[in-house]
């Protein structure tokens, strides 16, 4: 928290003269209490959100959580039932899509099959009645940027998935939008290509400085690319924050379990001091660092603790640590190459622990082995619910 604050302060200082500062303060997109219902279903239920200029912002959530609907409200392809949408500080709730300074990369790419690659990319500029020569220049340079110059004359049906993706991206950014909306743009690609394009997309965003709003259901993708992530659940914002904050400090059970894997421990608060508090769980007494809990705790209140599997330490049975160490039995493991994912049997149910395979050789523990787990007290997170 402190660190994040310090960064923000220095950024404001760097903004310099007052004129620049005010434009820097105007959010690229601001949503105020936006709702959208489809029949009885609330796809978006009263979301307020402010997206900074030049930010890579991800909307993350399972399918049907309303993230695409929210994106379409910003694009102007759908109208909110309530609330307002502002783009660049200007109210744009009822501005038609073709007049908004935003462009979209569609999930299905939605490239025009009757136009070739160059014509597809030139489409937006042509709609703006830009001079032919200028169009040619901009289209040419954008095709170089996304490295598809050699595809210029191809028909859309002759492109591979990855190439289509690049064309769709070029077709949107050639218009130099204030905000680029991306609706699961890498969803249809295979894993390797997706990883490659993630890196490229991220670099491109940094270079162009365009605000990106990126919709995805892939938490890894969101973590890898975003400045901030909005985790959506059932039409609401479950958590909003920087990538590492959302991962390290999940606030709700949903956020904890949707982003990455998570062990949950239920218990009751036993003891509270200035530095820490104790929670009685089925595993035993667990000590938790207090700094991470913003709200006051009451003795005897029930609570849920979360800990990421990779933060659980697995030690030899004979080894004992002072704090939060418990005996367990290995009930199974999955060897993934870079790590071994253990399933550990405890009095309170199964516990997942992922151990990096730093040394070569077979997994240290076999099924049925007894071991000791240690839950570092600063890795435990108290959830809101």
């Amino acid at each position, binding site marked *: 928290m402190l660190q994040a604050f310090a960064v923000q302060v220095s950024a404001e200082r760097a903004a310099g003269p007052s004129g620049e500062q005010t434009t820097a303060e105007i959010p690229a997109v601001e949503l105020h209490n936006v709702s959208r219902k489809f029949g009885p279903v609330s796809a978006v239920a009263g979301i307020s959100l402010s997206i900074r200029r030049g930010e890579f912002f991800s909307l993350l959530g399972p399918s049907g959580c309303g993230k695409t609907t929210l994106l379409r409200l910003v*694009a*102007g*392809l759908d109208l909110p039932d309530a609330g307002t949408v502002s783009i660049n500080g200007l109210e744009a709730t009822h501005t*038609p*899509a*073709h*007049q908004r300074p*935003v*462009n*979209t990369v*569609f*999930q*299905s790419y*939605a*490239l*025009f*099959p*009757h*136009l*070739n690659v160059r*014509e597809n990319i*030139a*489409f*937006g500029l*042509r*709609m*703006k009645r830009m001079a032919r020569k200028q169009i040619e220049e901009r289209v040419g340079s954008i095709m170089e940027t996304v490295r598809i110059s050699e595809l210029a004359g191809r028909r859309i049906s002759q492109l591979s998935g990855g190439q289509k993706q690049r064309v769709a991206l070029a*077709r*949107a950014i050639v*218009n130099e939008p204030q905000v680029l909306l991306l609706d699961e743009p890498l969803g249809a690609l295979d894993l390797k290509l997706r990883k490659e394009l993630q890196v490229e997309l991220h670099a491109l965003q940094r270079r162009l400085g365009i605000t990106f709003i990126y919709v995805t259901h892939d938490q890894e993708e969101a973590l890898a690319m975003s400045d901030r992530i909005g985790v959506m659940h059932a039409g609401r914002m479950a958590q909003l924050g920087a990538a590492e904050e959302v991962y390290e400090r999940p606030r709700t059970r949903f956020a904890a379990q949707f982003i990455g894997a998570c062990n949950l421990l239920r218990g009751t608060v036993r003891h509270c001091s200035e530095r820490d508090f104790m929670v009685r769980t089925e595993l035993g007494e667990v000590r938790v660092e207090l700094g991470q809990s913003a709200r006051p705790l009451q003795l005897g209140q029930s609570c849920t603790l979360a800990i990421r599997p990779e933060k659980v330490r697995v030690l030899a049975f004979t080894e004992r640590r002072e704090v939060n160490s418990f005996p367990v039995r290995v009930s199974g493991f999955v060897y993934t190459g870079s790590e071994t994912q253990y399933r550990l049997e405890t009095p309170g149910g199964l516990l997942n622990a992922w151990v990096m395979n730093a040394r070569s050789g077979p997994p240290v523990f076999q099924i049925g082995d007894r071991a000791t787990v240690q839950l570092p007290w600063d890795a435990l997170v108290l959830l809101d619910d």
Partner: protein
Amino acid sequence: MTSQSQIHRGEAITRGRLSIRAAASLGPGFIWLILFFLIPLGIIAAMSFLSRGEDGTVDRPLTLENYRRLAGFGLLGFDPLYPIILFRSFVLGSGTAMLCLTAGLPLAFFIAKLSKPFKQLALTLVVIPFWTNLLIRTYAWQMLLGPGSWITQLAVWLRVIGPDEALYPGTFAVYLCMVCDFLPFMVLPLYASVEKLDWSMAEAAMDLGANRFQVFRHGVLPQIQPGVIAGLILVFLPATGQFVIPDLLGGAKTAMLGNAIQQQFGPGLDWPFGSAVALVSLAVALAGLWLFTRKTADQNLEIV
């Protein structure tokens, strides 16, 4: 089994058996086409170069006289009667096709947007006029549009026509009936295209700054173009040869292609000339279609 068996769509079968099967399934269609289409067409083509004998028989010598006459160089000097008839018929055909397209597009979109049970109902309603005989429908229009009918009275009251006039007979009545008659031929193929429409293409066009017209032009039309072309052809061809409706509702004043051909084969007893008329109209229609499809296909490639 001498020949090696191979796997064809999951079935082990020899090449020979596959050929027999293909011949058996394609054969009837081929024979039908040859017997009732190619051979008659050949006869007509041949006949168009023969002459009319005494008493209306078909006779030698071989001649190009029929085509000369068709082009307007008759016994009584130049008279462009047949080119005019041909032109008039094509105007009627293409006019009907365009009107059907104008009326059919909104209808197709409307039906495609309906929920499933209503969709079935709407499609049935579109096809229902087929269940009544064309002549009966045409006579019904005569009554509906004749002097004294309430539609005529309404038109008089609205000052669309003068007090002593009627909507029938006339061009309006002809086109009205033609559109009603041929609309299903347009709506059905259009609907099939509109049904499959990918609206994200329209949204992409909108997103890239296209106005309503441009969205339709670039986001919708290219997708439904196969349906539009199919519909135009399906309406244009029969509408060009249609002569009952212009005859009954147009007041039998103007000859159409259909009448012209029927005249030669019927009362005129001039089969060679009738064949020439039929063949030329067929050729002109095919040439027109070829130009039309080639032009629309080209448009797909050109920078808009």
